[in-house]
């Protein structure tokens, strides 16, 4: 390559051409990726590989030694009724939260289309919960729902007469309380993405529909929904894959209790590994959970995030 410092009278920046910089330029793309990839390998892939070993040996702080135990750890998890129940609780809580958040968020997005006075301020308020730590959300809702001094219990008593309901421990109120806290935090997530979808629908479609005398309901069903389907899928998928990891608000609001009744899978694995120190069993369980999640990711994410949707 010619090393001229001027072309047509323009002074060009001098280029250091050493063996290193030629090599660096040739492998430039891989050099850029390398540091991040190495870190990910070191802190997620290495632990995952290591944990395969942990899952197949005795790894319990109460029992010395690391003898190979075959599938015993996996059997312990699969046969544990608390584990099965926690999976069911996770499924029920995440599905009901995501469905409600979707419906409420869609309502918000439709209410916020167009321009009106105060829209900017309302927009700012609506997105605030997204920036609050889930632990803080749990803490705040515990304060509101606690009995007998919390404001919610007082209002209910005033409206419907005295109750004996304990909002954070009673059945089914503890689940509803957890769902309410989750809805409070994550409905804005659905709202923001669905609003982006609604505003990107071409106005011509609505104008054509109005000229043809199509009813409002049919317009919504046949034009709006199909147009925003890709964004609905993205919003629901992202939210769902996070919802199944539910841990923080459980930890703060119910502590998994009363008993083990509000254990989610993440909370169960945390308790088994870090409170009861059955590390082998917890690791085997987290591998099963990981495989379940991976299957969901394969189905949902790859399909969604093709470059075309971007």
């Amino acid at each position, binding site marked *: 390559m010619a090393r001229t410092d001027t072309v047509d009278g323009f002074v060009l*920046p001098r*280029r250091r051409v050493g063996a290193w910089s030629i090599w660096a*330029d040739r492998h430039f*793309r891989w050099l*850029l990726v390398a*540091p*991040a*990839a190495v*870190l*990910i390998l070191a*802190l*997620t892939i*290495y*632990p*995952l590989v290591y*944990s395969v070993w*942990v899952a197949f040996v005795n790894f319990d702080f109460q029992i010395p030694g690391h003898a190979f135990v075959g599938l015993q750890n996996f059997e312990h998890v699969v046969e544990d009724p608390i584990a099965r129940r926690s999976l069911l609780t996770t499924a029920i809580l995440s599905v009901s939260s995501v469905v409600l958040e979707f419906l409420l968020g869609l*309502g918000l997005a439709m*209410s916020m289309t167009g321009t009106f006075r105060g829209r900017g301020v*309302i*927009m*700012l*308020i*609506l997105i605030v919960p*997204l*920036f*609050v*730590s889930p632990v*803080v959300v749990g*803490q*705040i*809702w515990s*304060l*509101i729902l606690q009995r007998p*001094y919390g404001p919610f219990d007082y209002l209910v008593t005033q409206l419907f007469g005295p109750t004996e309901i304990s909002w954070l421990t009673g059945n089914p109120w503890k689940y509803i309380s957890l769902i309410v806290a989750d809805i*409070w935090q994550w*409905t804005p997530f659905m709202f923001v993405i669905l609003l*982006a979808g609604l505003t990107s629908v071409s106005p011509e479609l*609505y*104008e054509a529909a109005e*000229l043809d005398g199509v009813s409002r309901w049919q317009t919504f069903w046949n034009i709006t929904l199909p147009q925003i389907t890709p*964004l609905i899928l*993205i*919003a629901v998928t992202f939210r769902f*894959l996070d919802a199944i*990891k539910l841990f923080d608000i459980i*930890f*703060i609001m119910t*502590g998994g209790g009363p008993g083990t009744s509000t254990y989610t899978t*993440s909370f169960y*694995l*945390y308790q088994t590994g870090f409170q009861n120190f059955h590390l082998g069993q917890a*690791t085997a369980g987290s591998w099963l*959970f990981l495989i379940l*999640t991976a299957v969901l990711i394969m189905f949902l994410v*790859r399909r969604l*995030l093709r*470059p075309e*949707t*971007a």
Partner: protein
Amino acid sequence: MRAVRRPRARRQGALSFDNLVRIVYLGLFLAFLLAPFYWTVITSIKPIDDFMNIPPVWFPEQPTLIHYRVAMFTYRGLDGLINSVVVSTAATVLSVLLGTLMGYSFARFNTGGQHLSFWVLSQRFLPPVAVVLPVFLLYRYLGLNDTRFGLVLVYTVMTLPLSAWMMFAYFRQMPAELEEAALVDGYSRWGALWRVALPLALPGVVAAAVFTFIFCWTEFFFALILTSRHAFTLPTIFRGFLGFQASSYGEASALAIVSLVPSIILGMLVQRHLVRGLTLGAVRG
């Protein structure tokens, strides 16, 4: 000039049924969102005597800041705050730096094809509980448990999918011509990235940085397991209020306020990039 005048999409009635529904729904939802904030602020400034009152005290006659002082010093909120600031800032710098390089490589050279970029993305959805235990054991071996540095590394890795994919999306929608011109002008590839592409991508870098910071600031699970007495962050202090007594309502609320104010302010500053941040660049906001 337009030949055809387009009909208005919707008539603006003074108070149509539609608008009424919209106002009522928005009003109710705003009340639902704001009431918890009001209660937290009020609780954080109530004197202790007001906590065990029925009916609840909706506004204290003698507001006090004592809970903030107790939360900051007795509950070591100040130490947690400092740790949170240091850890979140360091992790953000590291994550956005590495993520920008990676995102640039994906966008300009399609490095590793779809496999590599999706592999990075899939880390975003990895259940933390699946990796935390081996990381805990590794850290115990390396002496990184309960250190800020250890937490910084974990947060960097956890936020790399976010920063790399946000920057991937940002660079992809930026024309490559300027960098090509820089290469013709004799810049090295590194120079074209550092001195041409990066300054143009600065808004994207800032947005990615803010989302990364908020993620680290609000993270609880890894901090709970990997830290204890020294490197603990602000969110982990809340475990001290488990099964809490009325006497600590004020401290819990005061800490909640301290924790949520910075991230809310930061979040509002990047409102424009919100959709992009929430979907890792998959949706253009």
